[in-house]
């Protein structure tokens, strides 16, 4: 019996061969068939050559990361056969170009897989162009799974619509050729198949794309950014929709300009953001402190990659947590949010803009390469009930009647009324120097203390319930162990919970999103009541453990740290946790 709607897929090839786009098309065809899908890539920092992969897992149930071994492997070059054929599951299928890798069987040395060797290039040439050899391979993968070809046809039409009907038609013909070829070889006997499930349309979206959705929905009007992997797609997506939503998107001369520019735009009243990675974020440090003392609402996305310095530009890490909490000299309040999946990216991006204006602080949203570039099926964001809130922003009418406006007036919760240039009676200097209530420079000791306290008070305005971690898996009473993680480790950890359950381990997951303000009370209460605790982090110093210790006094003794610049996998987490609790 074939496994219905449960399949893992992998495509590999050199940069420039369309690995990611074919992988994405495969994933979207399964999404449109009504499956739950997860897709992730792995590629080195180069434009041509090398070895790129895109992997997809699909399931009838919600999935949160890649699962297990690939059942279908498309090898767009010989190297992929060499390094990836051994990963195929038993009974899997290897799709390759028989005219280019004639020795695939000898290289793979596998008796337990099906070889789908097709003259991809010639078939593509017959369909209209050799360049579509990857589309032929995609068609072949679909043929193996017995997917309704109409879904592929619709997908192609959507994908290539902008390039004209001729391109659409030839791509469909190329896919068709691959589809028919593999179907004739496999003939319905493959270990997995896809059957259409009727359901409400989902989104297949990655962290960068979801963050952009959240920013647009929140009314972001100004983006200044300097390209840097893995945040660059945010610049591209925003720029591509500049006219649709009336957003000014400015590529700047450097990240220093980007951060200072958004501070200016925010001061003038536009919801503003930038996005970068560690190197650029370092350059923004000084400006982030300026936003702090000026109380200017800005949102900064930092998609972490493996550092320090240039590090591993296209690989993932969670090592900027403490840096984000301490970026820039001096002390000032900032909000640091680390969403864990695409939906949280949307929600927290939206929240970030609200919080920035409510508290008049810089808000840092910590993504990472794995989160930024991994896609998953999620419910349509438009159903989420989020509302724009602008805090103590003064209206023109109120300012018209205002007298002796004090921009940094002392208030019970530290938050002062904010007016915008162009509004009457509000003239003040927004200054990077320490200042008094009016904004005028002050170096007096008592004034200084009052301003520090005023700013620090603002963070307490956010209620604990809003920033509390989320819990999954076994209840506190029944759990053998509480696993603590943050950011993108959520996905593999959620999948690990399922595997642990199969092994008889009752595990509870605590996922922390807010690093500042920190939900100390909830975290401490849950850790203290746990039988056993372990922390999972994508860094070598257990930075969240240090933060938890600092904020709660609780030290999580066991840490499972991964810092080979790759994401956690559910299998490895499950094996590690099983061992910790003394189960096999």
């Amino acid at each position, binding site marked *: 019996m074939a496994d219905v709607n449960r399949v893992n897929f992998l495509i590999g090839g050199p940069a420039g061969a369309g690995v990611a786009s074919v992988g994405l098309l495969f994933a979207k065809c399964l999404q449109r068939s009504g499956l739950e899908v997860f897709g992730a890539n792995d590629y080195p920092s180069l434009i041509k050559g090398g070895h790129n992969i895109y992997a997809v897992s699909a399931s009838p149930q919600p999935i949160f990361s890649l699962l297990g071994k690939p059942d279908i492997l498309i090898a767009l070059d010989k190297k992929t056969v060499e390094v990836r054929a051994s990963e195929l599951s038993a009974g899997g299928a290897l799709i390759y170009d028989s005219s280019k890798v004639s020795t695939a069987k000898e290289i793979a040395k596998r008796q337990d897989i099906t070889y789908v060797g097709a003259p991809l290039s010639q078939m593509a040439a017959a369909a209209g162009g050799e360049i579509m050899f990857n589309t032929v391979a995609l068609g072949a993968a679909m043929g193996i799974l017995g997917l309704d070809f109409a879904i592929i046809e619709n997908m192609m039409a959507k994908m290539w619509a902008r390039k004209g009907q001729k391109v659409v038609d030839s791509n469909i013909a190329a896919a068709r050729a691959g589809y028919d070829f593999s179907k004739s070889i496999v003939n319905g006997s493959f270990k997995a198949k896809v059957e259409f499930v009727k359901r409400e349309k989902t989104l297949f979206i990655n962290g960068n794309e979801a963050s952009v959705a959240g920013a*647009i929905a929140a*009314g972001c*009007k100004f983006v200044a950014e300097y390209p840097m992997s893995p945040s660059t797609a945010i610049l591209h997506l925003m720029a591509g929709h500049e006219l649709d939503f009336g957003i000014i998107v400015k590529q700047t001369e450097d990240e220093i300009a980007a951060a200072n520019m958004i501070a*200016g*735009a925010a*001061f003038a009243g536009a919801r503003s953001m930038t996005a970068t990675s560690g190197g650029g974020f370092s350059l923004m440090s000084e400006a982030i402190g300026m936003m702090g003392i000026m109380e200017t609402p800005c949102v900064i996305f930092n998609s972490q990659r493996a550092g320090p310095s240039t590090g591993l530009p296209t690989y993932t890490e969670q090592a900027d947590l403490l840096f984000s909490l301490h970026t820039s000299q001096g002390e000032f309040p900032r909000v640091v949010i680390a969403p864990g999946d695409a939906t949280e990216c949307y929600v927290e991006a939206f929240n970030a803009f609200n919080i920035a204006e409510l508290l008049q602080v810089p808000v840092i949203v910590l993504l990472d390469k794995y989160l930024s570039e991994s896609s998953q099926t999620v419910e349509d964001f438009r159903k989420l009930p989020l509302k724009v809130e602008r805090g103590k922003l003064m209206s023109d009418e109120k300012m018209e009647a205002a007298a002796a406006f004090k921009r940094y007036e002392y208030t019970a919760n530290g938050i002062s009324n904010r007016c915008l*240039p162009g509004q009457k009676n509000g003239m003040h*200097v*927004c*200054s990077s120097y320490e200042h008094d209530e009016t904004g005028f420079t002050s170096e007096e000791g008592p004034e200084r203390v009052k301003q520090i306290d005023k700013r620090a008070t603002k963070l307490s305005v956010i209620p604990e319930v809003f920033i509390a971690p989320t819990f999954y898996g076994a209840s506190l009473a029944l759990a053998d162990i509480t696993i603590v993680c943050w950011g993108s480790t959520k996905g593999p950890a959620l999948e690990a919970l399922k595997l642990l359950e199969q092994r008889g381990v009752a595990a509870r997951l605590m996922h922390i999103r807010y690093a500042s303000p920190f939900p100390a009370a909830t975290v401490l209460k849950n850790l203290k009541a746990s039988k056993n605790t372990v922390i999972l982090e994508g860094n070598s110093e257990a930075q969240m453990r240090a933060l938890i210790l600092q904020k709660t006094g609780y030290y999580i003794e066991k840490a499972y740290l991964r810092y080979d610049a790759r994401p956690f996998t559910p299998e490895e987490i499950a094996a590690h946790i099983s061992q910790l609790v003394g189960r096999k």
Partner: protein
Amino acid sequence: MVTVSDLNSGHAPTWCPGCGDFGILIALKGALAKLGIPQHDTVVVSGVGCGSKLPHFIKTYGFEGLHGRSIPPAQGIHLANNKLTVVAVGGDGDGYGIGMGHFLHAMRRNMDFTYIVQNNEIYGLTTGQTSPTTKQGTKTRSTPNGAIEREINPILMSLSAGATFVARGFSGDIPHLADMISQGIAHRGIAHIDVFQPCTTWRKDLPYDLYQKKIYKLDAEGHDPSNLEAAMKRAQETERWPIGVFYKTEKPIYTDEIPFINDSPLAKHDISSTDISKYIEEFM
């Protein structure tokens, strides 16, 4: 009507007696009053340095940012609300040293704001080090044996980077400087105004009377400000120091290419509810 006294902030400037910044402040107030721009529609942006304290001494909106970074926030403010009058000010260290990258890119971008550089050929607030405009050989506290590097030529740089209004004034000639500034503000596009400004504390070798002796006015000698080549030639004079408008041309400004702020500036757009369908449907 806005008068010069309306523009008094009530705070006394903290500059040294005789500092050229006083002349620049008076000239800027005069220019804003002459143009009749409402105070609440003006934003004076600065970096950090002696001259960058200026926003505190003029009653408009002000943004006193980071050292070397007056231009990026000025651009952000302008893009967020292109109905405002934005004037960035800063010293030669601020604008031509640490902020040089922003300066050159601002010139090529041709956004509609004015950039005044208080150029006294010295770092003042940090107590007297060489600046990018300090002439080669000059002894300062950081170059006690004479500056080894050649000085930069900021006028030539902005001309070559594509600035559409390039002028120079002298803080000791306030009516002329006020005219330069008001022309710069009225100009549609980027206006770069370099201002000769004596530092009476750290550059006693560059006193007012030396400037007065060396300076001549471009318009008095028939310079044609529409002639870029002639402007570049004048900018390279060393024996005599020209002030006035070097170059002026009309070119499309950055925001001309942004259709959705024609009617209403960005900051005034209604953001209470945004339908993201046009974006989100790509992912279905």
